[in-house]
């Protein structure tokens, strides 16, 4: 792999990138004092980095091509993860260990850690909700955060005006979000994929802009503060107890979501979604009502976002429109894609990776979004199926080994 032509290629790549990043990386102009700062060491870094990375890139591309050839010959084996889950001797103790960890976690770690974990769990719920829309039904929704905002603001406003508690607001917020999903869904679901993406993006921005500008209704950019945390039959709770309590609510919520989505996936409706994703026309020919199926996906996805929003508002006790930007939608979409579109376990892994990793890697803090962007690109190029790929349930035809029957003797 280190032949002369390879080195020449990499050298060219590194020269090209040095040229490309020259004005942005090397020169910095201080327009107030009118001084130019030259940062030549950045250029050397870019040159060296791109030289090495270009080798890696070519190697990975070659491997990917080889992998595709292998897949074409028909030899496919189950991914490692599915083999572990399929093996009961490994999966049962794993599950038990994991459950114990979940229960002990809030008592063993600080409130700060528990808070981060709760955030990750909220993202799991959001991701699983979006997974219905994007992963199963194949509708690219870039404005998912709008429903999240609707849920959060429903709780905040209902509480502010009518003093509604968390447990009442949870279903109400989910219901309002679902309603919004249907309202948006009706007109836009006729659109093809890319158009749908851009309209949902626009819708998300509209919701955010309205929340930002309509001061009488949403209190504008300053947001709403003093949102109560969830109560437990009117019990007074200290801050740390409230955090632990919210953590367990979120665990319950996540389990519920996993259960519901898992059941939906293999239901008649879930299979209709997958069919719709694969081929719309064939699916309609099989007698599936396109509009209704898409609408249910949309509104169910929105329901989970609404619930996530209510919990988010209860967790932070303060919300403002800045929490509901397009970046948030992109984040949720990325964790679905990173984890593996359509795969429940993938979404869970994806949220842990995307939410927890930056928290624990404070050192790369400012590079977080940079790495995030590049990870999306690299994932799409080299592993478009995600970390934990969805394996479709398959049925194998196995002949019964009964000797003496004409069936067996014919083999």
């Amino acid at each position, binding site marked *: 792999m280190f032949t002369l032509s390879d080195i020449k290629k990499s050298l060219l790549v590194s020269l*090209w*990138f040095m*040229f*490309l*990043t020259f*004005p*942005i*990386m090397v*020169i*910095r*102009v201080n*327009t107030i004092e*009118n001084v*130019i700062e030259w940062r030549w060491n*950045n250029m050397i870094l870019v040159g060296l980095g791109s030289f090495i990375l270009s080798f890696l890139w070519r190697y990975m*591309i070659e491997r990917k091509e080889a992998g595709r050839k292998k897949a074409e010959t028909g030899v496919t084996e189950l991914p490692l993860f599915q083999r572990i889950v399929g093996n009961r001797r490994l999966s049962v103790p794993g599950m038990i260990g994991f459950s114990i960890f979940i229960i002990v976690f809030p008592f063993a770690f600080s409130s700060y850690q528990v808070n981060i974990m709760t955030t990750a769990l909220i993202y799991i719920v959001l991701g699983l909700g979006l997974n219905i829309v*994007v992963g199963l039904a*194949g509708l*690219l929704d870039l404005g998912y955060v709008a429903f999240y905002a609707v849920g959060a603001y429903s709780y905040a406003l209902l509480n502010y005006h009518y003093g509604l508690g968390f447990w009442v607001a949870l279903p109400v917020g989910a219901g309002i979000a679902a309603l919004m999903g249907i309202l948006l869904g009706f*007109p*836009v679901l*006729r*659109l*093809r*994929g*890319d*158009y749908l*993406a*851009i*309209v949902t*993006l*626009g*819708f998300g*921005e*509209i919701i955010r*802009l*309205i929340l930002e*500008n309509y001061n009488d209704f949403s209190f504008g950019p300053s947001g709403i503060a003093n949102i109560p945390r969830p109560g437990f039959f009117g019990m007074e709770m200290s801050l740390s107890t409230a955090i632990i309590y919210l953590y367990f609510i979120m665990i319950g919520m996540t389990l519920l979501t996993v259960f519901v989505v898992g059941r939906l996936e293999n239901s008649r409706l879930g299979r209709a979604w997958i069919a719709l994703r694969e081929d719309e*026309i*064939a699916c309609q020919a099989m007698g599936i009502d396109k509009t209704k199926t898409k609408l249910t996906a949309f509104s169910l996805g929105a329901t989970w976002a609404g619930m996530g929003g209510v919990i988010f508002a209860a967790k932070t006790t303060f919300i403002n429109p800045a929490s509901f930007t*397009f*970046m948030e939608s*992109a984040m949720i*979409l*990325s964790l679905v*894609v990173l984890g593996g*579109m359509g795969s429940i376990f993938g979404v869970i892994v994806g949220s842990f990776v995307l939410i927890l990793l930056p928290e624990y890697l404070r050192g790369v803090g400012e*590079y977080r*979004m*940079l790495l*995030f*962007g*590049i*990870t*999306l*690109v690299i*994932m*799409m*190029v080299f592993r*478009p199926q995600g970390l934990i790929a969805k394996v479709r349930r398959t049925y194998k035809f196995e002949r019964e080994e009964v000797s003496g029957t004409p069936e067996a003797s014919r083999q």
Partner: protein
Amino acid sequence: MEYFLEIFLGGLTRGSIYALIALGYTMVYGIIELINFAHGEIYMIGAFTGLIIASILTLVGLHPVAVLALASLAAVIYAAAYGFTIEKVAYKPLRHAQRLSPLISAIGMSIFLQNYVLLAQTSDFLPFPNLIPEFEFMDPYAHIIGSAEIVIILTTAVVMVLLTILIKFTKIGKAMRATAQDRNMAMLVGVNVNQVISVTFIIGSATAAIGGVLIASHVGMINFYIGFIAGIKAFTAAVLGGIGSIPGAVLGSFVLGWTESFATGYVSSDYEDVFAFALLVLILIFRPEGILGRSTAQKV
């Protein structure tokens, strides 16, 4: 009446800038059916390169017109180079992947480029020198339209004419049209499709950079985030006009520019973006193929 005219011309200026960006979207979509989310970032990088080069040249003490010309040239070259590279890195390996993959790769690229500029430069708004000179003969009309606006509108018109000539009458233009119609067929008759796609990215990025330098010089402020909202707006314009169609992108941009201008001028400036997106949603609902787009029947 004068107020109306002022708003009308303001909308035209806005529309011109959108058109310069929207062209890249529509051309790329026409050829590989991809929403190039990173396109807004290319516009931003064009503006930044322009700013950096312009600042250096101003410090050296060049005449503003020469500064404008050289800075625009550098911006165009760099934006084109970025467009070319992005296509090679993020989209080319995905040419045969499922439809969602390139789109997500594009979103990733867009986030990456934003943060790249944020980290390498600054997160603050940078003042952009006003490079477009004030014409004396414009003085009587200065309350209706400024010199910068005239320059923007004229530049856009020139770019549009050149682009039309390129696509209608040159060999590469023919190849582009062929690829847009049917990529496989174009390959069969000997069109180098990879080259055509690269050229499309280069041209689209170059026009976006022109828009970037012009608007930055007109508004006087840039930061790393300007590409996002401009990109979304320009995409809206491209969809309004019928994505894939070049005259459509221009028309859609003007419609969008006027909508925003009149909404701000007569209703309220807080909801400028809301009007833009609401217009998009309405158009897509009632005429999903856009104003000038052709609706194609889906065949099985």
